[in-house]
């Protein structure tokens, strides 16, 4: 399947079409609005399900097989901010806190983008290492910490203030809802294994794709409502929000390949590397880098990079992973 088919398969999948429908709802000012409780519920479900499935997969594959690619993923997340930061500072002429915050966002990951990618691979019948959720779990936090450190050191903070805000960031990054659910469910999956899966599969696995479609309908409205802010972020961030994921995506695919992952697994590592956090990172940055402007990082991660990855990014990284292999 060439890039065109890969794109077509994605753009005509219910998940992506519902996402577009959500964007339309926001743009057309329809009064479609999901209750907050539903948003939280869907997040809890998706994170728990993906973590649990991943944990069961880890228990099947054995840590011996999982640790290397996981370590690679973690490193990737940690280093991405290190070059993203100078780029944003120099080319983007962004202030220290803004550059640091954005760097943290792009090093961290978007769980929903990852889930959409697994869903895409299922759709095109491409197998992948189902323990890949472990990559997701280990990639979310480190970049956030690095981002905060860059911001503090760049501002030449006195070490004590530094310590406290890194502690805040650590707390947010490790005990924040998303990370906690993901890691916790992973542990549950590892401990209960295939035997435990049998009982709950009908809830955590079977309806999963449909729930994702519904969730992306909502995410469409959320992203759509921010499209208005595109004017505010200027041309540089517009370009960055699309080029950064492409660069990071190919890098992730390459690294995944090097770490011995299948094309499916390499695609997922590419997607993780290309995705930008829009929940955990903003929360941590608001608290640890209060001088950074939320409009900048939220708009670029949520209104530019997220839709780009969901619609065309994923198939591109997949095509890259397959091209690489041959």
């Amino acid at each position: 399947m060439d890039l065109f088919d890969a794109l077509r398969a994605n753009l005509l999948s219910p998940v992506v079409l519902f996402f577009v429908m959500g964007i339309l709802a926001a743009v057309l000012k329809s009064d479609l609005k999901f209750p907050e409780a539903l948003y939280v519920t869907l997040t809890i479900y998706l994170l728990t399900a993906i973590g649990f499935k991943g944990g069961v997969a880890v228990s099947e594959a054995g840590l011996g097989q999982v640790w290397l690619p996981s370590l690679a993923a973690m490193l990737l997340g940690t280093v991405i901010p290190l070059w993203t930061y100078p780029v944003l500072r120099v080319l983007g002429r962004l202030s220290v806190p803004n550059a640091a915050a954005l760097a943290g966002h792009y090093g961290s990951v978007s769980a929903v983008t990852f889930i959409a990618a697994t869903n895409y691979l299922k759709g095109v019948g491409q197998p992948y290492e189902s323990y890949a959720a472990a990559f997701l779990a280990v990639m979310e936090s480190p970049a956030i910490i690095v981002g905060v450190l860059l911001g503090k050191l760049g501002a030449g903070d006195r070490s004590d203030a530094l310590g406290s805000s890194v502690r805040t960031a650590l707390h947010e990054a490790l005990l924040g809802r998303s990370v906690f659910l993901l890691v916790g469910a992973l542990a549950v999956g590892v401990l209960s294994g295939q035997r435990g899966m049998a009982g709950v599969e009908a809830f955590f696995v079977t309806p999963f794709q449909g729930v994702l479609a519904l969730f992306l309908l909502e995410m469409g409205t959320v992203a759509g409502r921010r499209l208005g802010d595109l004017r505010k972020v200027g041309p540089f961030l517009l370009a960055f929000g699309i080029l950064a994921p492409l660069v990071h995506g190919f890098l992730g695919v390459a690294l995944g390949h090097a770490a011995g992952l299948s094309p499916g697994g390499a695609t997922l590592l590419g997607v993780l590397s290309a995705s930008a956090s829009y929940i955990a990172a903003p929360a941590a940055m608001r608290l640890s880098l209060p001088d950074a402007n939320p409009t900048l990082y939220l708009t670029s991660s949520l209104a530019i990079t997220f839709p780009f990855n969901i619609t065309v990014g994923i198939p591109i990284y997949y095509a890259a992973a397959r091209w690489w292999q041959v």
Partner: protein
Amino acid sequence: MQTHPMKQVTIIGEALAREHLKKLLREVGAHGYTLFEVEGAGAQGERSGDIQEFGNVQVEVIVQPGMATEILERLQRDFFPRFAMIAFTSDIEVLRREKF
């Protein structure tokens, strides 16, 4: 019906400040608080309640006038620079002054 004058301090700001606000109220020694989620708009743009993390909370705390001033000063110093937030006080009459 013997009532006693008190100050109600109302704080409306982004949900991320939630735990920090609770901490502040503990530190100044308020005897209680009431909290609920709201949406709103202000200088820092619209904050719709669809994503908890992007929404607002409204905190109401009833205190003696002196403590009200203390809370406002702390908000002014530590919160207004960091969070989308407003705060105001109003005069109320309570029963059982000893509770506040």
